[in-house]
C-alpha cells in the first residue's frame, strides 16, 4: 500500500500548492486598484527531507513583482502629487486570470491522480472479497 499512499500524498501536496497559488492570485486581483501594490507570485519546489526526495511539492517564498508601477493620472486622488499622478498597482489582470486558470487545471490534474490511485488501491482489494 505504501506506493498508493505515497501517490495520494503527493497529489494532495500538489493540490495544497495550487490552492496556495490561487490564494495569491485572489489577493492580487482584490488589490488590483490599491495604489502602490506589487503583484505577488510564488514558486514551487520539491519537498526533500534529509536529502531524500519525497516526491511532494510545496510553495516556496512569496515574491513581489518587480514590474514598474504605473503612473495614473487622477488629480482628485488623495495620493496624487502636484502634477496629478499617483502610483497604481502593477497587477496585470490578464496575467492573473491566466494564472488562476492554470492553477485550476493543475488542481484538477492532481485531483484526477488522487482519485486514480484511490480507485486502484480499492480495486485490488476488491479481489479479496467475493
Amino acid at each position, binding site marked *: 500500500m505504501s506506493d498508493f499512499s505515497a501517490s495520494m500524498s503527493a497529489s494532495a501536496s500538489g493540490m495544497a500548492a495550487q490552492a496556495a497559488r490561487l490564494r495569491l492570485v485572489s489577493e492580487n486581483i482584490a488589490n488590483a486598484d490599491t495604489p502602490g501594490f506589487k503583484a505577488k507570485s510564488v514558486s514551487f519546489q520539491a519537498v526533500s527531507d534529509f536529502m531524500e526526495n519525497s516526491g511532494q511539492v510545496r510553495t516556496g517564498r512569496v515574491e513581489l513583482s518587480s514590474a514598474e508601477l504605473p503612473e495614473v493620472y487622477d488629480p482628485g486622488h488623495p495620493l496624487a502629487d502636484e502634477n496629478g499622478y499617483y502610483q497604481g498597482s502593477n497587477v496585470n489582470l490578464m496575467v492573473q486570470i491566466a494564472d488562476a486558470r492554470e492553477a485550476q487545471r493543475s488542481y484538477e490534474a492532481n485531483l484526477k491522480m*488522487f482519485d486514480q490511485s484511490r480507485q486502484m488501491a480499492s480495486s485490488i482489494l476488491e479481489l479479496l472479497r467475493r
Partner: protein
Amino acid sequence: METNPHIASQLYTNAQNIAKPDGPESGGSSLFAEMANDFMATMQAGESAAIAGMTGKADAQTVVEALAASEIAIQTAVSVRDRVVEAYQEILRMPV
C-alpha cells in the same frame, strides 16, 4: 493380525511432529501486531484530520487525503479479517 503397540505410538508421534508448526510463533503474530498498529495509526490520523477539518484548522486536501488513507486501511483490514475467519471456518468444517 497382530498389532504392535510400539509401532502405533511411533506413528502417532510422527503425525504429531508433522502437524506441529515449526518454530515457536515464527514471525506471523508479530507481523500481524505490526499491521494492527499501523492500521490504528492510520485511523487515528484520519480522525484527527477530520476533527481539525471540522474546526477549520486543516485544509480540505489534508482531510480528504487522511480520510481516503483510512478508508483504504479499513478495506484492507476488513478483507484480511474476512479471509482469516473464512479459513478458520474451513478448518472447523473439516471432517474429523
